[in-house]
């Protein structure tokens, strides 16, 4: 129910909100002027991989925090998948007690520097913010980032993680995968006194945060800071360890681990099985982004991994992965970058902020368009993409209107690089090498939503491996719930 007797935007008087805030509450001034965060100029940033959003200054953070009306109903906390104490950390921030703001934030979210940058706040905490009903919600994500960045710069001011060593329980837990789900589960379990080993298949930890999300959106130093935090807590990190190839989950369980948490994500790229899809110049988003971000192809030849970047790039898809690919292509020197999306703008699953950033940077959006095939140049390289226009029909299972091809609307667009960003499913390696795991027809592992427990004894799972490609915060939340349940199990045995 919308607030009633609210005065106009510019009134200096106290205002009264009713209904949603639980009865009549007297509130301070309602300031609807959200403090914008400075960003790099769109033209300049299209040529570099530096972070786009520059963060609040202390003054900006204070001003934005001041807007929070500290409403007693706290809808934001419910909107947050891990129930961060949002009003409390904002209150501490505006009282100038930064260490307290950090503690408040970190008591629920061990990766605030990451979440502040990449969470889809507009569909979570900020969507339900009381101010959102009037106009601009509190910029919770930006404040979260501000507090986390302050902590990075002022580490010593906050109590060190090793200050109160937990009583060792003598129990061993193996965490498979070092994405947000695995890192969160690991941090929670070491803090509870268990001995934790994280096994990561790649040569660096961090999962999608390292190989997928680009530097200009999430600086890798921040991710590595969080990884280091987990190892300084006492978790052991084993890189280059592909579970299922070296030890299997069953072998880990037989060789001394009391419990295993699967946080291996959804890393298998989907292709469309269209004619010409194996032509050179056609990449999965995973390959394109891995070469760019993890292997640092944007610094080639200082780094050894190349990336064949053409002039006209089509990115197929409408999610975060597509936005990231398109914006990387631009920064790698492409002249024209198209996003090819089969539905319309409103259905795009990407974070709103990143869509706006991409548009500002000059990415060209072709909505209601679907590829139907790829044409080669006679030497094995892609030279054009065949497309068809779409229109929206009845809503499908996802609630979004189903795109249907418009007969006779076929056309060809000239491209020399294509990135297929149509989503990912879990890698079957773990499920196929582990006895007795239950999987769905999408290859996700079945686990209890509240506890992460799988049907297999002593095995838990969480994050994208259970949900399919989702969000950082939901993966963290799943890691946290599983850690709590693993702890309960270990203590009762």
């Amino acid at each position, binding site marked *: 129910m919308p607030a009633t007797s609210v005065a106009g935007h510019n009134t200096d008087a106290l205002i009264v909100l009713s209904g949603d805030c639980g009865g009549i509450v007297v509130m301070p001034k309602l300031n609807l002027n959200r403090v914008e965060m400075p960003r790099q100029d769109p033209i300049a940033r299209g040529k570099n991989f530096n972070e786009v959003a520059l963060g609040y200054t202390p003054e900006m953070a204070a001003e934005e925090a001041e807007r929070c009306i500290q409403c007693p109903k706290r809808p934001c906390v419910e909107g947050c998948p891990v129930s961060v104490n949002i009003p409390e950390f904002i209150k501490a921030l505006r009282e100038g007690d930064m260490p307290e703001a950090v503690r408040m934030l970190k008591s629920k979210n061990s990766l605030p520097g990451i979440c502040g940058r990449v969470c889809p706040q507009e569909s979570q905490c900020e969507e339900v913010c009381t101010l959102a009903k009037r106009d601009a919600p509190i910029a919770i994500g930006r404040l979260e980032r501000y507090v986390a960045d302050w902590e990075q710069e002022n580490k010593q001011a906050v109590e060190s993680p090793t200050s109160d060593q937990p009583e060792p329980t003598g129990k061993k837990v193996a965490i498979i995968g070092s994405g947000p789900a695995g890192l969160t589960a690991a941090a929670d379990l070491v803090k509870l006194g268990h001995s934790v080993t994280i096994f990561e*298949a*790649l*040569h660096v930890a961090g999962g999608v945060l390292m190989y997928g999300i680009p530097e200009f959106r999430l600086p890798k130093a921040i991710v590595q800071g969080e990884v280091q935090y987990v190892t300084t807590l006492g978790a052991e990190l084993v*890189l*280059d*360890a*592909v579970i299922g*190839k*070296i*030890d299997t989950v069953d072998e880990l369980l037989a060789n001394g681990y009391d419990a295993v948490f699967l946080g291996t994500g959804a*890393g*298998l*790229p989907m*292709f469309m*099985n269209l004619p010409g*899809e*194996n*032509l*050179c*110049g056609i*990449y*999965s988003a*995973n*390959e394109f982004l*891995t*070469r760019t971000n993890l*292997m*640092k192809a944007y610094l*080639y*030849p*200082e*780094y*050894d*991994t*190349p990336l*064949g970047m053409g002039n006209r790039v089509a990115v197929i898809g409408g999610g975060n992965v597509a936005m990231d690919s398109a914006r990387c292509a631009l920064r790698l020197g492409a002249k024209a970058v198209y996003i090819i999306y089969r539905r319309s703008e409103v259905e795009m699953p990407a974070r709103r902020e990143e869509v706006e950033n991409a548009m500002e940077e000059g990415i060209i959006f072709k909505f209601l368009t679907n590829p139907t095939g790829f044409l080669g140049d006679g*030497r*094995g*390289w892609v030279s054009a993409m065949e497309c068809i226009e779409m229109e929206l029909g009845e809503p499908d299972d996802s609630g979004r209107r189903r795109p249907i091809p418009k007969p006779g609307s076929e056309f060809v667009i000239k491209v020399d690089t294509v990135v297929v960003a149509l989503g990912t499913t879990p*890698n*079957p*390696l773990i499920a196929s090498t582990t006895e007795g795991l239950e999987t769905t027809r999408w290859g996700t592992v079945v686990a209890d939503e509240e506890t992460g427990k799988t049907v297999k004894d002593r095995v838990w799972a969480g994050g994208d491996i259970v949900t399919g490609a989702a969000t950082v915060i939901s993966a963290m939340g799943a890691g946290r719930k599983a850690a709590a349940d693993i702890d309960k199990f270990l203590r009762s045995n």
Partner: protein
Amino acid sequence: MYKILSREDLAPNIHQFEIEAPSIARKAQPGQFIIIMVDEKGERIPLTIADWNRENGSIFLVFNVVGQTTNKLAAVQVGESIMSLSGPMGLPAEIDKFGTVVTVTSGYSVVTIVPVVQALKEMGNRVISIMRAPTMDSVFGQEHLGAMSDELIVTIGDNSCNGEPNFVTEPLEKLLKAEQIDRVITVGPVCVMKLVASVTRPHEVKTIASLNPIMVDGTGMCGCCRVSVGGKTMFACVDGPEFDAHEVDWPSLMARRCTYASNERGWSQYRCLDCAQW
């Protein structure tokens, strides 16, 4: 970090390293490979596990110096370490009692095929190995392969492979005509494998090729290694590297292998070892 325990220079630009990697040594099977990254700025490249010593916790790699990473690797000395090594990747070679098996190898694969030959012998197969080197002074690995095989045929051919039956295909053709061959296994440059497939096809002899597309992760995550086999897209790192050679789309594999030919450093001096395809 993974320490180089020993190294041997087998021929010009062909080196063999023994590297400390206990968890990989423990699980390695014939035909599997690892992904190696020399240093922090390096590229991830696949190399076959040529042999392993489970007690010592070490694996052996044999590589041909062709570009940036293999040059970097060749510069690493005994006692020094490389940054990353992961595996064993890929499915193990298919080993069964087939009857008479012919292997056709060229270059590094003369050494990397040995565990496969050994496993085939242990299953009771008769194994005839055909190996090829471009010139007399680039012959290596023949003693070891010969000792493992029932018969060894060494061919020397120059760098051209424009369909001339001047090297591996000639003895292979003879064998196919002379006796019952139940399976052919080929590993090596793409053009050699492609020629082998074309020679065995009319004889309807099951032929297996171990494909070597460009790879990144080696775990099925990127799709860089995709190959078209029997009209279906497969990821060589997880569905292979062995595939039915008669079903492989060779032109596509050749083109994809050359994806970075034009921006690799020094590519102008480099030509595919066998077919100078670009």
